[in-house]
């Protein structure tokens, strides 16, 4: 009975280790790939793998006993359905419930899938064939949705699958047929492989039928290597459904259809007016980053890993402490040297942009995340203030030819100023060559010719720029514009031909990437330093709220910036009017209150509380005074006046009495009187501190959440996890590899280890021989050499098999051993002597029959080792 149970356990273990775990690993990879392509799965492949594993594990354990599949599975499905019904009936939060239901369904599906796999593996020899085919089908789905067909890509997916299929089919046959004839097993294995190929072909055919539409779509774009995602190249949707700007842009045949309802990205207040008295808003473009690298083969503009002159300020707003700022003084100092500049503030309220993403008008140097007023917390996710050095000459209005007289006037003024620049001789050589660099190919040559034609009459750089602009805005004899904006410019007739050339010389239709790309090359052909920029086009939509701008998904834009000595970088956009962009919906929301500028912000710890006068002794560690930041190595004591203070912890309001000593927090003061404190750059910190009134009136006090350390640690862990998400793939791979290698080593060395153990226990070198382990060692050695006991008794085995084959004295030993084992008679000293000498002779005789390599080979056979410990009674002999 015990033997029976043990045998069942071993079988379960074998199936778990050799079939289920590889199956789970394969599923994990499949799920990981599927997650990248299907939104329902919610990018949680690790948890999903766990669900699947749970299913397969439980099923494998259960179905190795005599459980019936149908009733048990019916019960399981019933339970899952009841659970789903309960979840859908929870009326707490409608959407939460819906989300949970979706998650639960994913869980249930995977669990049941695992369940069925576990059942299949434990009951059917040939289930591996079906499983391998399913995995193959998933691989087809993945390749189809990947749509980037390359030989290595396909090989990368299918090679492991073929290897896996071979493995799982072989292992399945091996695990299910321990003890059966090996030749027959090989035949079964071949048969199964053939079955796999057949099933695979059938499934290929079926998926081909089902997914014909997808295939034809891919065929349409066969040479374009594009995804069907909207705004590919400019905006990228993250897993948490926020957006970030990609670092790439290429002229695709289709820009993606403009959505009917483009999503709002963020709302911003830009403090930039043409005339400060009249308050005519001057919407400057919002920059995300520069694309200074060009890949001629795919015509892709990319972020350069080295940005010259460190002129791109890219902080991560979510990583800066609230009300503290990050400033790039190098950029500021360079930019402020230019004339006709001013500092433009922008307040950004994120809606769908990632909180890590930073956008600001040209030449930003300052970023300060701020808290959002409670009333707007639902609408906006995060907010931050930016400061940029913006030239007076910059502005979206200057770009297009306008009929507005006022604007025309400004445009003329701007031209007059820029016309003063005659050449770029004063620019550093590296800078100039970097920004006028052109690739070498036929297209560029013909583009150069065209540019020379267009700018033949132009003298100054400003003239040349206008000539280029006019080229794109020219109209034909019927008054129709030559260049048209389209989001579906189509593809050139010859596959692989330059899309930019197609745009410039043939179709004259394109979107911002085409316009900006060609403009960039034309300007560079004229010797004007310029670069490609991506960000958002600012569109003035609302008359009511001057200075407030709404930025929608479809405003993601690419344009060119030109460098003028003394004036810095200026935006230059040649993209002809995009009707869609102007038709974007009018924003219905009202803008949030303008951000309260914290004139004083101090972080530190409460040291003492005066509850009567509502005063707090505060150890100040860090403070900002009117956007100037100071850190104190030793905390400075100041007194805070808390009479009219709003005390917050996270989002909850606290009472003054709830504060306690040792609480750390952030005190904020929006007091107007503090605005006058204008610390000069080199003033010592202590003097500035003295300029602040003591006690200082505090308007808001944000208490850091309790359990600071642990929570922060957790948070940082989570952050780390997020950051490590990319590296985790590699680490998981490495981990898998290590586990695999360890398992391999374990499997390889196991027979040796067992043998060495038995020999050690037999104490061969001692005078005290342990006859039991001598017996074990010799039996193990024989077993490993494919000389199995099978159903014979040891004595039978010794006399009829072992001694016939190896001519040892095994039978004699066995009689002594059996006498020792079962009788009450003492072993005589002669017999002891015999036992003591027996094993060495035995081993020597056996080793004589085989070469060392043969023996090692036979010891590598783990299956034979398993046979030593498992028995199949009643099987064929």
């Amino acid at each position, binding site marked *: 009975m015990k033997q029976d149970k043990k045998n069942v356990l071993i079988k379960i273990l074998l199936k778990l280790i050799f079939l289920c775990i590889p199956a789970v690993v394969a599923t994990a990879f499949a799920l990981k790939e599927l997650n990248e392509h299907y939104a329902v799965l919610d990018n949680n492949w690790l948890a999903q793998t766990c669900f699947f594993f749970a299913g397969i594990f439980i099923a494998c354990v259960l179905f190795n006993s005599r459980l019936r599949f149908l009733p048990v599975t019916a019960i399981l499905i019933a339970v899952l359905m009841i659970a789903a019904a309960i979840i859908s009936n929870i009326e707490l939060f409608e959407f939460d419930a819906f989300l949970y239901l979706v998650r639960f369904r994913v869980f249930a599906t995977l669990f049941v899938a695992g369940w069925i796999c576990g059942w299949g593996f434990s009951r059917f020899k040939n289930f591996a064939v079906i499983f391998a085919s399913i995995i193959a089908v998933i691989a087809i789905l993945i390749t189809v949705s990947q749509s980037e067909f390359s030989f290595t890509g396909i090989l990368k997916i299918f090679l492991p699958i073929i290897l896996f299929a071979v493995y799982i089919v072989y292992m399945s046959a091996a695990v299910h047929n321990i003890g059966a004839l090996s030749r027959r097993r090989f035949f079964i294995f071949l048969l199964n492989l053939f079955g796999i190929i057949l099933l695979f072909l059938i499934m290929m055919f079926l998926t081909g039928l089902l997914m014909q539409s997808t295939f034809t779509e891919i065929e349409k774009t066969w040479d374009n290597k594009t995804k069907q995602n909207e705004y590919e190249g400019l905006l990228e949707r993250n897993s948490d459904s926020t957006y970030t700007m990609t670092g790439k842009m290429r002229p695709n045949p289709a820009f993606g259809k403009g959505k009917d309802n483009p999503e709002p990205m963020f709302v911003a207040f830009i403090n930039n007016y043409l005339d400060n008295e009249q308050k005519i808003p001057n919407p400057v473009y919002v920059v995300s980053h520069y694309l200074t690298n060009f890949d001629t083969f795919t015509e892709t503009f990319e972020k350069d890993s080295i940005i010259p002159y460190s002129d791109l300020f890219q902080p991560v707003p979510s990583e800066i402490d609230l009300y503290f700022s990050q400033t790039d003084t190098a950029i500021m100092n360079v930019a402020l040297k230019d004339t006709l500049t001013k500092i433009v503030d922008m307040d950004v309220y994120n809606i769908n942009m990632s909180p890590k993403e930073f956008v600001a008008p040209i030449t930003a140097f300052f970023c300060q995340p701020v808290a959002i007023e409670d009333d707007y917390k639902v609408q906006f996710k995060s907010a931050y203030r930016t400061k940029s050095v913006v030239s007076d000459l910059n502005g979206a209005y200057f770009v297009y030819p306008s009929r507005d007289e006022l604007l025309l006037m400004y445009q003329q003024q701007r031209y007059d100023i820029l016309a003063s620049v005659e050449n770029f001789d004063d620019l550093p050589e590296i800078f100039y060559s970097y920004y006028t660099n052109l690739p070498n190919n036929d297209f560029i040559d013909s583009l150069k010719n065209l540019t020379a034609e267009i700018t033949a009459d132009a003298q100054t750089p400003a003239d040349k720029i206008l000539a280029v602009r006019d080229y794109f805005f020219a109209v034909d004899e019927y008054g129709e514009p030559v260049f048209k904006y389209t989001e579906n410019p189509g593809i050139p007739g010859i596959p692989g031909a330059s899309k930019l050339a197609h745009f410039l010389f043939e179709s004259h239709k394109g979107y911002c990437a085409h316009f900006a790309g060609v403009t960039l090359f034309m300007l560079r052909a004229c010797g004007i330093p310029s670069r490609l920029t991506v960000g958002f086009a600012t569109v003035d939509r609302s008359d009511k709220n001057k200075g407030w701008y709404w930025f929608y998904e479809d405003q993601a834009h690419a344009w060119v910036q030109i460098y003028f000595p003394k004036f810095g970088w200026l935006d230059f956009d040649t993209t002809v009017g995009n009707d869609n962009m102007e038709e974007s919906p009018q924003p219905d929301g009202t803008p949030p209150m303008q951000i309260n500028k914290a004139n004083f912000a101090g972080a530190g710890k409460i040291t003492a509380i005066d509850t009567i006068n509502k005063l707090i002794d505060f150890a100040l560690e860090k403070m900002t005074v009117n956007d100037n930041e100071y850190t104190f190595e030793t905390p400075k004591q100041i007194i805070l006046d808390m009479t009219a203070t709003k005390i917050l912890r996270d989002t909850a309001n606290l009472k003054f009495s709830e504060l306690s000593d040792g609480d750390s927090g952030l005190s904020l003061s929006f007091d107007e009187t503090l605005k006058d404190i204008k610390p000069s750059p080199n003033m010592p910190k202590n003097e500035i501190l003295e300029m602040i009134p003591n006690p200082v009136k505090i308007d808001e006090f944000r208490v850091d959440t309790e359990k600071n350390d642990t929570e922060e640690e957790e948070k940082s862990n989570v952050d780390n996890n997020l950051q490590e998400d990319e590296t985790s793939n590699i680490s998981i791979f490495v981990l898998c590899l290590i586990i695999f290698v360890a398992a391999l080593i374990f499997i390889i060395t196991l027979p040796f280890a067992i043998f060495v153990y038995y020999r050690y226990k037999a104490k061969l070198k001692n005078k*005290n*021989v*342990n006859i039991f382990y001598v017996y074990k060692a010799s039996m193990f050695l024989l077993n490993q050499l494919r000389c199995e006991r099978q159903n014979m008794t*040891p004595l039978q085995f010794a006399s009829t098999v072992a001694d016939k084959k190896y001519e040892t004295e095994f039978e004699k030993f066995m009689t002594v051993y*059996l006498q020792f*084992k079962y009788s009450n008679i003492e072993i005589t000293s002669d017999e002891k002597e015999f036992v003591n000498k027996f094993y060495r002779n035995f081993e020597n005789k056996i080793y004589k029959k085989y070469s060392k390599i043969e023996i090692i080979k036979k010891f590598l056979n783990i299956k034979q080792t398993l046979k030593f410990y498992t028995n199949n*009674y009643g099987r064929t002999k």
Partner: protein
Amino acid sequence: MEEQNETMEQNIQQPQITDKTQLLIDNIETVIKGKRSKIEMIVSVLLARGHVLLEDNPGTGKTLLARTLAQSIAANNAKGLTFKRIQFTPDLLPMDLIGSHIFDDTQKDFIFKKGPLFCNVLLADEINRASPKVQSALLESMAENQISIGDLTYKLQDLFFVVATQNPVEIEGTYPLPEAQLDRFFMKLSLDYVDDETEADIYRNYLKINENLHSVKQVLNLNDILQLQCEVDKIYVHDEIIASIRNIVAATRSDTGILLPCSTRSGIIFIKCLKAFALVNSRTFVIEDDIKTLAHAVLHHRIIFKNNDARKKTLNSLVDKEITRLAKLKINSNDLLVE
């Protein structure tokens, strides 16, 4: 020290005993070729004080074997053992076996005329041909070792060994023994055909064999057999062996392929047979090989199986399971010190 002395004695005695059993077996083998293992089993039953049933096709040597065995230990003289043979037929009556009271003219009284049962070795040929009445008379006498007629009870010989044979073919007009009666036989053996080489050898030497048959010597006498039977009781059976027999018997009770499992009596008989078999194999202790060799002969005819498949496989797999358990078992694992 006493124990040592005992074992010493055993060691000294053993060769003699071995000689005796080997002598007997060798003697039988002069006539019955290539069936040493079966002969060993039959001798085991003899030593275990049991009875044996031989079942096989005609011409496999059943009767010959029984006769040779009987002649080896019996001689129709005063010193030797008596051997009787009865050919069972449907019209045989119990009286023909046990004998009857007949009127003696000289004494003017009924005297009991003893039947063939009053012998030491009885060959009951084709036992299934006789009517159940006769069969039960025989079986009762086998079980009780005595015969009751009217008020009188006659004791049979101290050594009373029945070798019954039956034919599995031509069952028309026969009375097959029910399982409950088969239970009385310690072993049910089938002799099987000999292997090719032995068969050729038999054909070559049939004259000599025939000669041997007529001049089978009596090699053991009554005292020898009784002494051997006492020796059997001294054979050592390890607890694990007993546990294995219990396991096998218990397993037959829980197996779904078995309708009538083994009884406790079967287990006792099994152990008796094992001891005797160990002695026949010149051992003073029982090993797992004995179980493997005897299990089928001792247990199979006591079990009623559900179907043919179970009849073929079940018992073997149960025994194999126990053999594996014993083979892996670590008993008495002390180190051996070599002086």
